[in-house]
């Protein structure tokens, strides 16, 4: 009888950006049910925290009557003034962090007998583990508590015992070499700053700032499928080679994206450009190009008090557009028939994406509009697909646009946020131009080089795992692999081949030495043309000297040297591990959060299957007896 049941187990995975949690293990493992942004808001009282921004709303009637009563409302979308307790994987604000965990715990609303498995960031120190242990036992009175290293969890998810886990987070990257399910703590690269998803956003921002985009826009651009990281050898569209083809093969795209100029001017051709690769391309009018000024920074217009004029203008524009669209639909139908295959994103010079403007919404809310007026302003400003109103769950359009997103925004949009279209050029491919990939590649090289057992290294190179939401950007993983390969791969065409494998034309020497390698190449004078001359030289050199000595021993030290380091130098090949096939729910969404899946597997094993035999968790009696320091004896 296992001590715990599947449906009692809580798993919590805190992250810098998003905290994942789930109560109970389903029959077939699913992605985390509860996703919480890892931030809290300071409450009125110091040291207390609120999960949502509390906005003070003044009710006019009450104000008039001089009543002291103030109304508060929870704003579930806004992130103004939020405190993020985890930065670069480190817990920087403990009271806020504990409040966040408490919020998550309460949101799960667990029954009493629930063990908790917490995914620990690699950068957390043993002392911090103790602190967490104490918190969980004393605050939640949990009957059992376990800590699981995030990198180890990932390797559990993939079911590989030896792997190099590259966890790309928000502001950091962790690289961990794991062999036989034991992480190498010594050479582990923890919390490498400036390499995570945030660095990519900043990379976009650095290039798009001049065009009027702000950080939030870049963040959403990064999450949209049009942002892509190209492998090092692919040229950008719009450079000579690519531009030759683009306009010719796709007249429709040329018509819509060929608007002269770029940046704000082109971006103002609202609704006319293709909305993105996931959605059909529309062809429409370019009439309102004069809108260019300030179109991106609607938030400040609104805040500046010119909202009403702007709203009126916007309304007019929308009507015009609707009219134009009717006309345009006919054109589009015609164009549709003639249109050749659409271009992949990487070949297009300019693409638009939908931007959910939180800042604008914040400003609107701060203006204390009545809820009716607010809704009106919202619908006027919203440039999202028109069908949004009819579509109850507004699922489809968003899942396409925000395939890269965290999914959080899907729910946010439902609360009536404002979407606008922004067009960007080839800058969208330059998110990682600041050497992010190279720094990660260097970290991987450092991590694996510091693994003491030299013979394990080649296996570690052969089983790279990239996870973490920072790696979700399209093309990131492929580009990273390409970067690592161009820099570190020991090319098989070089001399490495001799010692890494015994050439196939030499029989394996037997221990007795009777089976001395025999050269099966041609006579000494002429090496066959197709054989690498070095291969030939090396094999004959070996055997030439073997023969006069009449003993195979000179070769044997060479072989045992190979045992000591199976390949002289690593890596001779670099590969990603294939994600497991047998988690259908995870397969759909991708394995970026595979640490959570690993935790599910681990929880099933340590809490249920092995009935507490493996000491993977600490029980309450253990805690009472030994105190928080004993957690180190129980960690996996």
């Amino acid at each position, binding site marked *: 009888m296992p001590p715990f049941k599947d449906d009692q187990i809580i798993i919590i995975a805190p992250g810098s950006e998003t905290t994942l949690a789930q109560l109970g293990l389903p029959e077939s493992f699913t992605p985390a049910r509860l996703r919480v942004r890892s931030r809290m808001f300071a409450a009125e009282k*110091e*040291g207390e925290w609120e999960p949502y921004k509390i906005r003070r709303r003044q009710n006019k009637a009450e104000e008039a009557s001089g009543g002291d009563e103030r109304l508060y409302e929870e704003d579930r979308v806004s992130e103004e003034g939020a*405190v993020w307790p985890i930065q670069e994987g480190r*817990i920087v*604000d*403990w*009271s*806020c962090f504990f409040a966040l965990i408490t919020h998550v715990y309460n949101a799960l609303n667990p029954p009493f007998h629930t063990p908790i498995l917490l995914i620990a960031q690699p950068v*957390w*120190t*043993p*002392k*911090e583990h103790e602190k967490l242990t104490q918190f969980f036992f004393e605050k939640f009175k949990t009957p059992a508590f376990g800590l699981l290293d995030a990198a180890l969890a990932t390797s559990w998810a993939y079911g590989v015992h030896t792997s190099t886990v590259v966890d790309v987070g928000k502001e950091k990257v962790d690289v961990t070499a794991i062999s036989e399910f034991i992480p190498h*703590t*010594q*050479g582990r*690269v*923890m*919390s*490498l*700053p400036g390499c995570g998803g945030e660095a990519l956003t900043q990379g976009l921002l650095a290039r798009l700032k001049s065009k009027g985009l702000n950080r939030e826009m870049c963040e959403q651009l990064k999450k949209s499928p049009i942002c892509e990281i190209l492998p*090092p050898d692919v040229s950008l569209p719009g450079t000579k080679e690519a531009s030759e083809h683009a306009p010719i093969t796709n007249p429709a795209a040329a018509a819509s994206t060929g608007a002269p100029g770029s940046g704000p001017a082109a971006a103002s051709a609202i609704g006319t450009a293709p909305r993105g690769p996931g959605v059909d391309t529309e062809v429409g009018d370019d009439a309102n190009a004069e809108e260019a000024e300030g179109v991106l920074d609607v938030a400040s217009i609104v805040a500046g008090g010119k909202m009403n004029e702007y709203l009126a203008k916007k309304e007019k524009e929308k009507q015009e557009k609707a009219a134009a669209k009717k006309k345009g639909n006919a054109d589009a139908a015609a164009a549709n028939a003639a249109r050749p295959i659409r271009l992949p994103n990487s070949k297009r010079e300019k693409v638009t994406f939908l931007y959910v403007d939180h800042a604008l919404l914040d400003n609107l809310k701060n203006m204390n509009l009545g809820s009716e007026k607010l809704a009106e302003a919202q619908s006027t400003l919203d440039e999202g697909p028109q069908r949004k109103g009819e579509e109850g769950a507004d699922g489809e359009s968003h899942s396409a646009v925000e395939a890269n997103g965290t999914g959080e925004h899907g729910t946010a949009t439902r609360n009536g946020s404002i979407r606008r279209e922004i067009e960007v050029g080839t800058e969208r491919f330059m998110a990682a131009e600041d050497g992010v990939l190279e*720094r990660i590649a*260097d*970290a991987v*090289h*450092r991590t694996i*080089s510091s693994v*003491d*057992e*030299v013979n394990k290294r080649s296996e570690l190179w052969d089983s790279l795992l990239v996870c973490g939401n920072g790696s979700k950007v399209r093309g990131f993983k492929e580009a990273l692999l390409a970067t690592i390969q*161009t*820099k*570190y791969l*020991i*090319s098989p*065409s*070089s*001399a490495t081949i*001799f*010692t890494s494998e015994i050439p196939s034309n030499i029989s394996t020497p037997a221990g007795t030495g009777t089976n001395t390698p025999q050269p099966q190449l041609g006579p000494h004078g002429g090496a066959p043309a197709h054989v690498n001359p*070095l291969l030939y030289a*090396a094999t004959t*050199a*070996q055997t030439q*000297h073997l023969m006069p*000595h009449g003993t195979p021993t*000179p*070769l044997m*030290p*060479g072989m045992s*040297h190979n045992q*000591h*380091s199976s*390949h*002289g*130098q690593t890596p001779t090949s670099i590969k990603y591990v294939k994600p497991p096939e047998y988690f259908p729910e995870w397969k759909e969404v991708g394995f970026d959060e595979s640490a959570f899946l690993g935790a599910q597997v681990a929880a099933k094993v340590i809490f249920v299957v092995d009935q507490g035999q493996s000491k993977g968790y600490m029980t309450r009696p253990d805690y009472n*007896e*030994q105190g928080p*320091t004993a957690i180190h004896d129980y960690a996996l």
Partner: protein
Amino acid sequence: MNIPNPSTAPVPGEYAGDEVSAIVLDPGYWTTRAGFAGEDVPKSVCPSFYGQLDNDSGAQYLFGENAIHTPTGNLEIKNPWGADGIVEDWDTATKIWEYAITSRLTGAKAGDPAKNGLNDGTNANGDSMDVDIDALDNQEKPLEDSPLLVTEPGWNSAKAREKYIEIAMEEWGAPAFYLQKTGVLAAFASGKASGIIIDVGASHTSVTPVLDGMVLRKGVQKSPLAGNFVSNQTRLVFKQSQPEIPLTPHFMVKSKTPVDAGVPAQAMYKTFGVPPTDSFRRLEEERVLTEFKESVVEVWSGPGRLSNGNNEDISKAMPGRPFEMPDGWNQVFQGERFRPAEGLFDANAALQDADNPRPKDEHTIPRLVQQAVQHVDTDQRPLLLSNIVITGASTLLYKFNDRLSHEINQLYPSTKNRLVAPGTVVERKYAAWIGGSILASLGSFHQLWISRKEYEEHGPGIVEKRCR
């Protein structure tokens, strides 16, 4: 777990390694090891190199792996250790060690919410001043609840030893302290109380005779022929090869193209606005050399020296080992790969140039052993020679032990000489730390700690009396 009653807290002043997690710090030239006593490997292994950026606002120091390997203009890579194997730059060394302890063991002191700096300004002015000072105090003492065991080289000066305890007590606020020599600890790690400890590290090789857990101080020998020496010899091999072998570190290369062996590299190189400094380049080159030492360099296993008879011809006939440089240049190394390490045993065989003079004969490892043994009583020698403990990362050079065994048997043919070399790499590399971890968690060790009270009574001089 020998607390009589789990609900009573241990009496203050009772330093039990089992309960109060003592921290063991084993600083070295290449890496600094730190971890909790009672564990089998140090949790924290940080480079002892640090980066220094000189700005207008003064020098900025960068610690840890992540910081020192990023090519940044003007980043100088330095090391606080002096050429004599004693810490030279105490201020920075303290910071590096503190970094090694706080970054991966204790974490930064978080303090309570009133002190973490986020809630400042909510207090009245006077209050927040007090809080700031408290917080400052708090941050300055990273080790307030952990006794500290530090390792030291056998030749440490009395002044340096006093410095250790001052740092631990004054700057880190450790409640208790002890200093122990690496040689003794390495012997403990192998389960020996007596023996000769041969420790080949990065900057120094030391030979320490230990008898019943005590170092025979006059017998301690050291020499600069160690890992860095082998690296420099490797550089010379590259330099003196025809044509010269270019040594290009990874950070210079953007992408490489496979080329045939021995053909000049065809790689795309990176360009830097501000070129990285020479010291940075040297550190990065060292990474390539480490790889070379791991995968290519071999110690001539003997019998006899490489220069004896036709040994050199035999070595040339041994199968070569290929190596590819970061820029794609590659070659099979045959006879050359025996050269870099030969100098450790045979001063004549060491490659020389203007910067690398011929090493002294008495600095080779066999001579060090010989001199160390000479300082030991004749009747103790067989005991020590049957417990020769090999430690230090540079002893991981391929065939090192075979050669050493041959050399020692040649010196002492009449005794039973036995090498004790831990099999696993971790134990070989971190032997002194592991010994410290064992020692600090022993129940009987508790009485040896120098407590804060004793330090305050007697001053730093107490370390000379108590830690022998």
